[in-house]
């Protein structure tokens, strides 16, 4: 602040700019603003352009050197070729991400409620420890996770689900810190009067939780479920460690199909587009909740 005043005063002195001039300057500034914003939008849409345009090209027309050219004819062949290689990945990821997101949201709801409304011994130590859990690099737990999962027979080929059940468990557990935080932020902002009157009516903690807190937490459920679904769907590292070929989640399938140089460019793009669709659809339809999940991660809901 002190430094700032030293650098700016020249403009302070030259105060009232004639209104007309300032208007013109404002107009020019706003033109610049629009130009920059739309140029940035184009940059952000470049990969989308490549994805879409390439996916719909006829496979014989696809070439990396003609990446920016529009298709001469529309074709769904790339999708048709890549889908059989991805369909089991889709099934696996759905059967994994849906229960994982529901369960960790449910547990997070209970945690968030208790942490925001009830004081128990050491609760002020517990919360920072949970918070830090959001940021832990998974590399630092993955060796113990792999050992434990192998020991209990949930990893890869030894398991009838090919590791999916164990992977689901992993997503639930490592999702707990963020879902807890999302619900805690929600309940902290919730007024206590309802709970207080329920308590006066003789409701215990469980009763207030089930009858009052849960129904009032619908938006937080949306935030937590979307967040968890997206991160389970997009996870790569745990999936690669836990699953065998038949149970690959969609990201691993995609990487193994489209990652190699031998795979046709058109199929790689069609595959990447397909794999992105579910989370993208969630984002487009429920962007508001998605956004709140993002901000919750920064503790400033």
């Amino acid at each position, binding site marked *: *602040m002190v430094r700032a005043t030293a650098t*700016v005063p020249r*403009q*302070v002195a030259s105060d009232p700019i004639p209104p007309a001039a300032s208007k013109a300057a404002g107009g020019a500034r706003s033109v610049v603003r629009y130009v920059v*914003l739309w140029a940035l*939008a184009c940059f*952000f849409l470049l*990969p989308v352009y490549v*994805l879409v345009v390439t996916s719909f090209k006829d496979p014989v027309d696809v070439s*990396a*050197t003609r*990446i920016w050219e529009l298709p001469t004819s529309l074709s769904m062949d790339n999708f048709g070729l890549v889908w059989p290689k991805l369909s089991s990945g889709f099934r696996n990821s759905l059967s994994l991400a849906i229960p994982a997101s529901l369960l960790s949201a449910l547990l997070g709801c*209970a*945690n968030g409620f*208790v942490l925001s*409304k*009830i004081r128990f011994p050491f609760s002020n130590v517990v*919360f*920072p*420890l*949970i*918070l*830090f859990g959001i940021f*832990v*690099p*998974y*590399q*630092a*737990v993955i*060796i*113990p996770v792999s*050992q434990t999962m192998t020991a209990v027979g949930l990893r890869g080929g030894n398991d009838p689900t090919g590791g999916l059940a164990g992977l689901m468990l992993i997503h639930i557990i*490592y999702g*707990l*810190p963020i879902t*807890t935080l999302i619900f805690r932020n929600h309940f902290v*902002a919730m*007024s*206590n*009067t309802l709970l*207080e009157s329920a308590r006066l009516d003789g409701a215990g*903690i*469980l009763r207030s*939780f089930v009858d009052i807190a849960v129904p009032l937490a619908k938006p937080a459920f949306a935030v937590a479920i979307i967040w968890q679904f997206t991160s389970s769907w*997009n996870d*790569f590292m745990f999936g690669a*460690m836990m699953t065998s070929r038949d149970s690959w989640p969609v990201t691993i399938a*995609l990487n193994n199909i489209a990652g190699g140089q031998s795979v046709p460019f058109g199929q790689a793009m069609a595959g990447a587009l397909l*794999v*992105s669709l579910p989370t993208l659809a969630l*984002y*487009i339809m429920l962007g508001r909740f*998605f*956004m709140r999940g*993002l*901000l919750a991660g*920064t*503790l*400033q*809901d």
Partner: protein
Amino acid sequence: MSAPVHVPRHSNAPPAVPFTPPPIRRRKRRGPAWLAGFLLVSPSLILIGVFVYGFLGWNVRVSFTNWRGLSPSYHFVGIDNYTRLLHDERWHADVRNLVVFTFVFVGGALLLGFVMAMLLDKGVRGEGFLRGVFLFPMAISFIATAIVWRWLLDNGSGDDTAGLNKLFAVAGLDFLRSDWHKSDSIWAIAAVALPAGWALSGYVMALFLAGMRGVPEALRESARLDGASETQVFWHVVRPALRPVTFSAMLIMIHISLKTFDLLYALDQGNLRIDTPSLYMWFTTFDGGFYDRGATIATVLLIGVALVVGPYVWYALRTERR
């Protein structure tokens, strides 16, 4: 440090909460009232305790052993693995790569995110659409992101020119042509800041935008009444209020940068010019069977993340408690 501390109270206070009622006093008779609540959270607390903190400890323990190969060995070897890492060429390159990547990616994403938020803050036509365009990459997996960008960052030349280079050639900007992450320079990994920034600058924008919109309009208005120009309003009113957001955004981005794995893995697997500790850990452990070295790298990574995130968590809690 003293000036900005009072500001977050305004910017962080959610407008949805006009007042904060006192917490319920749950010190009623019939036994400890917190017990039921405690039982409700205890399964989660046990899971987090074991799978996060227990496993972190287990991993640290592995870093002090000579466990190589598939069957675990817990023979204690002291800090041998750490001293060996200090003399490991690949580790040196990885740390250098990570530093370069973090500087370029975090710096770039913060700058871009800030500029986007600044431009959007005043309210422009089509704001919702633009925000959506800047943010949607957050919804897409790093694997899909990497698969598109590996074609955009193609390093073919001559008739083989593709990707961004082709776009440059068509636009007559040939001098911008680059070998990207395949170039023979220590800056190769800086090219990855492009896909990483593409994926995450929108997030930074969202943070800054929330921070800017959290500055009460009355504050800006009163500065304007005092004769401040828009630039001065920004500099004296908005900028100080943004310091906490800048701080959070920076720490969050650095910690993301340290953990970056999928993007590098899928962009160009095995390219040592974009190798980082998180990749080294993965390959040495699960491909090489060097569990001891893997655990050691993971522990160093954990320390790095804790150094970045620790102050952040502390600061966030303190701000909240006020």
